[in-house]
């Protein structure tokens, strides 16, 4: 079970108090009524689902109730940082998304060196 640092409560709290809320830094277009179908698809439907470093939103729904952003490594499940909603996307030094392929079962199993 994950331990998540809430940037508002300034504390690590159990995953039980949180709800995942999808990829972060997808801004709703200002003049949304006027965007093209392609732009709408990009905004609403398409997600990167990157392996490795991902930016995602969480809500401390059973805590302070706030939405916030997190940089998480989807391979190790490690949270690299969390920061308040509305702040710009922050790079994580030395970390980037590795590749976009999905691991096969065989690759993840039997991984003793």
């Amino acid at each position, binding site marked *: 079970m994950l331990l998540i640092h809430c940037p508002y409560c300034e504390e690590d709290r159990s995953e039980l108090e949180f709800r995942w809320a999808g990829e972060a830094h997808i801004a709703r277009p200002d003049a949304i009524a006027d965007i093209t179908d392609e732009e709408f698809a990009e905004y609403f439907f398409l997600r990167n689902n990157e392996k490795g470093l991902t930016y995602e939103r969480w809500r401390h729904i059973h805590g*302070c109730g*706030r939405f916030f952003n997190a940089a998480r490594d989807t391979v190790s499940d490690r949270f690299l940082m969390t920061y308040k909603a509305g702040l710009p996307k922050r790079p994580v030094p030395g970390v980037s998304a590795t590749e976009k392929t999905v691991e096969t079962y065989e690759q993840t199993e039997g991984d003793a060196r």
Partner: protein
Amino acid sequence: MAEMSSPAAARTLALSGVRGRAASLAVTPAAPAERISLRARSEDVAALSAALGLELPTRPKTSAANNGRTAHWLGPDEWLVIGEGEKGSGLMAACVASGVLHSAVDVSHRNTAILVEGAGAAAAINAGCPLDLSLKAFPVGACTRTIFGKVEIVLLRTGEESFRVEVWRSFSDYAYALLAEGALDATF
């Protein structure tokens, strides 16, 4: 809203009929109280504090109490303010009198409270609550919204071995029963 002086209708409390077991660890329903959910921006906290007669806490996981009123920090712009006594102490009116922008919503009847008091109180709550309830991590006066089993609660530590559990009324039977289970287990 302020409650009227003598309503013709009688109250039926959530958890009526429930009696805590007489033991070193007691789980008992709290008396009715006036409650508001208060929301405000940081620049308006001082005026609201003055109007309420207590210092609205601005640090996470803290509470402040004065004159029978307790303000619980729930989020950066959110407090649960509880006034003792069934008739209440005019929390809504006090907020209006502050003259600053805010949202105050009466939730006196939305919540009910359960008191957990005695040796092992923290262990009883830890039957369903994932928080670290050691005195170091959750000292007297600490409060937070959190999870208890399958329901949400607001937890306040009122003493080294006493807690107040605020819970929505329809979840109170569940919360009470799980606290009773936890209390039983905390004695082993």
